């Protein structure tokens, strides 16, 4: 019985196009990667001369003093509890405007914490009052 020998399949990976593949991968990752995207809190400042009267019922004054203490509607609130209070106020009145007022020597970090907390409560209407 004569069995024809099957031709041998060579077990080699073709390496001639390896460089091309590496090249393509490299180009792909170069294009796709972005260097250190900027992260932060987006905010839109009120336009110039855009001061207008609003119903006092729709305003919550948020005062921040130099020591980082926060007064919200004449009630002192720990800075990291602001989002709860803000969420509660927003649930009561969806049109609520939060007017953040800082002192001249308030730290920037405290201001950012307040804005951050208001954003956590999904407050969209945040205004900043001039520091006095």
């Amino acid at each position, binding site marked *: 019985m004569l069995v024809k020998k099957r031709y041998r399949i060579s077990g080699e990976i073709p390496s*001639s196009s390896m*460089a*091309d593949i*590496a*090249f393509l991968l*490299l180009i792909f990752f170069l294009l796709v990667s*972005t*260097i250190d*995207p*900027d*992260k*932060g*809190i*987006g*905010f*839109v*400042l*009120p*336009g*110039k001369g855009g001061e207008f009267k609003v119903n006092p019922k729709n305003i919550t004054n948020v005062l*921040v003093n130099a020591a980082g203490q926060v007064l919200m509607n004449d009630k002192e609130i720990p800075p*990291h509890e602001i989002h709860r209070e803000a969420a509660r106020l927003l649930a009561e009145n969806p049109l609520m405007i939060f007017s953040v007022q*800082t*002192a*001249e*020597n*308030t*730290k*920037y*970090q405290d*201001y*950012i*914490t307040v*804005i*951050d907390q208001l*954003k*956590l409560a999904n407050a969209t209407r945040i205004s*900043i009052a*001039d*520091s006095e």
Partner: protein
Amino acid sequence: MAIKKKTKLKAIIPTASMPDIIFMLLIFFMMTTTMRQVEGLKVLLPQAKKIEKVETKRHISYIYVGRDGVISIDDKLVKIGDVSKVMYSKRVADPQLIVSLRADRNVQMGVISSIHNELREADALRVNYSAITANY
């Protein structure tokens, strides 16, 4: 008279190693280029939780505020009163301008308020307070 034809010289450049050469050149240039090294001031960014990424890098212009209240725009120190002038020209050049405020967390709010007013003056209203993710 039969003159024997000279052997023809083959004028082929070997192209098999072309990718390798390009690859090496690429690697070389990648290694030797350096990113822009000095930009702005050394600031300790404030921490925040609800942080969002800025979609484009193209329309961003940075204002650095150092912890002692020094303001720097485009690697130049700027006096507080001149911020609106500088930003206005940028705003005119690019109406979609987003101002990224990279201020130190210990800056006093007086400086930031002045910058706010200057930006309002310049009609550059889209601001991004640069921050790092808080881990409290």
